[in-house]
């Protein structure tokens, strides 16, 4: 019982991100995103046009079909949310190391 994860009072950190690389979020960038997300214990969600997906799921990332210029909303809640958000923002800024 002592190891119970208490999620009730975690604030949600949100960020608006724009997809800047030429082709958008295809398999490789999606895998990079999921790798970062899965390393953290916090909940991570990405939303595009009202559809929200689990950021730790590669299927979800692919389903977004986020082409170049897409506006995404990142939501993270949990202990390491701040760090996760920082790493993800950096990934987007680096254009997923594609340019």
């Amino acid at each position: 019982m002592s190891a119970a994860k208490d999620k009730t009072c975690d604030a949600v950190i949100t960020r608006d991100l724009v997809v800047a690389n030429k082709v958008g979020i295809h398999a490789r960038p999606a895998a990079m995103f999921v790798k970062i997300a899965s390393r953290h214990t916090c909940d991570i969600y990405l939303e595009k046009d009202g559809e929200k997906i689990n950021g730790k799921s590669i299927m979800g990332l692919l389903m977004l079909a986020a082409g170049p210029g897409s506006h995404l909303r990142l939501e993270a809640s949990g202990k390491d949310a701040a760090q996760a958000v920082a790493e993800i923002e950096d990934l987007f800024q680096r254009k997923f190391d594609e340019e």
Partner: protein
Amino acid sequence: MPREPITVERFYTEHSGQLDLRLLGGAIGLKRVIREPTVNRPGLALAGHTKYFARHRMQVMGHAEVTYLKTLPRDERRRRYELIFSYPLPGVVFCRNLPPDRDCLKAAESRNIPILTSSLITMKFINLATLALEQLFAPRGSEIGSMVDIHGVGVLIRGDSGIGKSESILALIERGYSLVSDDMTRVTLVDGREVVGTSSELTRNHMEIRGIGIVNVAAMFGAKSVRGEKRIDLVVTLKAWEEVKDIDRLGMEEEFQHILGVQIPHVTIPVRPGRDLARLIEVAALHVKLRRAGHNPAKELNERLLSQMSAAPRGL
């Protein structure tokens, strides 16, 4: 989810096959918006009574309307066309392949109102078009979770990443059940009381298995292993054993979750090494099926217990 307005163009492209629609004129008007999920026969408006005229609906003309217009002298007919097309109609459909006359087409084109025909008889067209429009207008959303069809019971499976959703779904597929969607399920409210789930067209039939990657379930397990869409009958949340506070040990109370405003039975299954999740999800689904048929095992057992206790002589 922000709704896109339903245009005549969308109605036309998505249902021209089923309704046998052809565009005759006023193509510029295809961008016009249909504001109500039903059609209207403009008999009274054509006769000059325009009060409460349902101007925001697709108009339908059949024998009654066309023969009535023929009884009018040409000038009067032209005036009626001017009158009816002065309203912001989304469009007009002539059924039974009845041809609109030149004056009608001219008046419609001058207002950029699309004119279509259908070979269907008016009654059939009205029924099918209304159903098509209800489907276009139906509230939609998306839910995070995978969905399977277990013996006719649609189950939405939720849970944190890594808890074992994908593995239990694979086990369920091997048991002969079908995958509807992986990781995200698109939901639509049908008839105001049922929620139907489906997958995104892009990733249909695919699943991610950690350690293996993305697999095509249909190619791997065959046609029986996938299903295009299914009504959601049960929501199952997989939760780590330590995180589950109070488990309902009896299963007598029913718990629900709301999707698109509809109450759907919900069950939390605590996860722990050694528990066969697929089996538990399967049993949860079959339990829902039996409860729907009127069985309530906990209640029935309790009633037998109560009658046994009341029958026992005192002191024993």
